[in-house]
């Protein structure tokens, strides 16, 4: 059904709008990077080597950053690179190390829930893709014209329209910071001292 609707949409849109079966250069680039990103993501959630999963995650997140660039949202792309690739993945790697994750393949990386998870994921993917394609098969993004996600634009809207949420977010980050510190401490001073003494 999806195929027929897609074909119908392509036939209908071949006149005035850009053709579905004759992609432009940006589309081809997006498609290729998207495939790479998706592949990296799939490897991330399926690989038996925990550290490799983190590294494949870098590829996936980087792919998404490239997609942002292709969508002309360059500021977000750099933020993505900075925060995700720069800090989050590093944080995850530290976490893996601190929990003594084994180097090399660990056969029990997936739980017994795997087949249920696969079923749920495939069903969700089918439903989402069907709905999304059904809804947006005749919609095009006009990427020409002024850049919409440049640093200047982003800064302007952020500090003109979104100042209050921005400030609130900073408080949230502070709270998260304090929370992380409290959680990471080793159960009070005496416990910490004893633990330190033991080690």
């Amino acid at each position: 059904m999806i195929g027929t609707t897609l074909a119908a949409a392509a036939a209908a849109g071949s006149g005035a709008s850009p053709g579905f079966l004759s992609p432009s250069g940006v589309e081809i680039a997006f498609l290729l990077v998207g495939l790479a990103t998706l592949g990296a993501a799939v490897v991330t959630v399926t690989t038996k080597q925990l550290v490799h999963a983190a590294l494949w995650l870098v590829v996936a997140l980087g792919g998404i950053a490239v997609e942002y660039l292709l969508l002309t949202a360059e500021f977000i792309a750099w933020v993505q690179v900075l925060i995700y690739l720069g800090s989050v993945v590093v944080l995850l790697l530290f976490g893996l190390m601190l929990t003594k994750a084994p180097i090399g393949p660990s056969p029990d990386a997936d739980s017994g829930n795997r087949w249920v998870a696969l079923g749920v994921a495939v069903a969700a993917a089918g439903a989402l893709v069907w709905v999304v394609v059904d809804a947006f098969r005749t919609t095009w993004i006009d990427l020409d014209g002024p850049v919409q996600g440049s640093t200047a634009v982003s800064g302007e809207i952020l500090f003109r329209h979104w100042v209050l949420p921005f400030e609130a977010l900073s408080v949230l980050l502070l709270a998260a910071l304090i929370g992380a510190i409290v959680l990471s401490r080793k159960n009070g001073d005496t416990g910490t001292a004893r633990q330190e003494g033991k080690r």
Partner: protein
Amino acid sequence: MTTTTLAVLVPLLPFAGAVAGLLLGRTAPGFVRPLAVLPTLAAAVLAVLVAVSQGGGRPIDVATELTPTGSVPIDLALYLDGFAVLTAVLVGVVATCVQVYSTAYLREDPRYPSYAALVSLFTSAMLLVVYSGDLMVLLVGWEIMGICSYFLVGHYWETEAARSASLKAFLVTKLGDVPFLIGLFALAVDAGSFRITKILGAVAAGGLDHPTLIALLLLAGVAGKSAQFPLHTWLPDAMAGPTPVSALIHAATMVAAGVYFIARLLPVFTASRAALVVLAVMAAVTMVGSGLAALAQDDIKRVLAYSTVGQLGYMTGALAVGDRGAAFFHLLSHGAFKALLFLGAGVIIHAAGTNSLSAMARMDGLAKRIPDAFWTMTIALLALAAIPPFAGFFSKEAVLVAAEQAATGHSDSAPSAAGWLVLVAGVLTALLTAAYATRLWLMAFRGRGAAAPDHGKEPLAMTGVLWLLAVPSIGFGLAAGPLPDWLDGHELSPTVATAVLGTGAAVIGVALTYALWQRAAARAARVPAGLPTAAATAEAEHAAVESAAQAPEVDEVTHDHPAVVAGAVPDPGKALLGPLYRHAAAGFHLDAVYAALFVRPVRAAAGLVHFLDREVVETYVRGAGGAPRLLGALVRRAQTGNVQSYLSTLFAGAVVLAIATAVLANVNAGS
């Protein structure tokens, strides 16, 4: 105060006394005796005042309606005529006597407070029945009496006999009360009111559609309450209660309530000749049967109980021939001397330490130990045997005269068949009554054998009451003259023919019994006292066991028991009845018939219900419990504790919902 106010106070005072006695019984034991005696005494005095002010004149009829009750109104009504005020006097006096007597008789009973309160409550209910002018209010009193009787019969609930006797009394009277209730409703629907005056007016106008049906339904209730055949079986067993209770409830008042009820509504019954004939047959069978049974009883109280049944039979007989004046006369005099008999029997039991007549017959000098009881009992027995000039003679003669008039066709309402039936049965019963009264007297007071135990002087509260009641037992016959002015106006004085007939039968009965007793005593004397025959020993043991079984009061009497001396007992009843004796002693096996007809089917049905409940209903209940348990076990398996499986289920559900929504939206958009 007006007569009406006084009359309202009469039932209210004992009621207040009962409530106060129940409330204060535990906390203030000192008040229990005054609270028991004084309200009842005041009620008796007030009842006398009411009677004097009413004076047998026009009936006082007042009513107030508390609230509308639909198509058939229920009023709080008083209907005071000569019957009502005189019955109230009887109830008040006997209740006072019994309360005074009980203070001595139940001196050491731990449950005396509740006992006294129940007796007060009963008195109040009886007075309500007597005064009430509305059948619904009357029914309330009627049922309260029933429940009080149930509690008081079961006063010694430690004993099996008392428990089963109270249950039996309750069930048998209820067996009659159910048709009674239906009859009341039918009567009220036919007459359009529960008020006695209106009902009587409707009957006089010929407004009853189903007189026979109503009369028969009401008769069932009366038979239950007044212990008439075939519902009389509860009364002999009810003697398991304390003796004063037997005197008050099961001799003088409550059992008379049925008779009183018919007397009040006599026009309803005379409207149906069939009902009168049924009533006459019932009375005749009751009279003769109870006389025979009384001759064979060993327990002194059971003798008196059967005697009560028989005398009530006289009253219903008088009603069957349409003369409520005679019935009422007998009700009053019987109430007096039967209360005296029971209270005297209480003294005798107290003194002898046993209920058994055959045990008393082996005691020497019982009469000398309790001279008051001896003399008053003698008076009361003479009254019972209808020997002139005692009260019983006149009242019984009134009944016989009424029957004779009906038999010869002088009565305008009663069929002559009923008259003949009542007359013949009445004369026969006069003989039997005299016989068992003589037997009772001889066996209780003319015993030979070991000396009776000496328990000292009986308390004044007991003996004084006996003498007080002895007065009407002797002299109430004089009331035959003035009494008709209070009642219907029928002549109540005896006529020569019936007097000769009745007294002749009584004298024959006395003489025959005495002669047979002499012969039996002589034969017993021939057998050496030290070497009794085996049969006599067995019989005596049997009698002792029987008396112990039937007399729970023996345990309650605190004095030590005299050892039962083995030996033949001169019992004139045995000789008189011959082969009938065995059957009469068992009450003509009516209980066995009831057991076969009712008890066993009910038990079988109960067993069936038990089985159904256990096997069928409970299966459903168990299933109702088991299915959720099973489901719960299934659901428990889902609680793995694994967060990922929970999350998977959650997402799966969300996906299903999303797909469903998308499909629905597509279908709707497509259509």
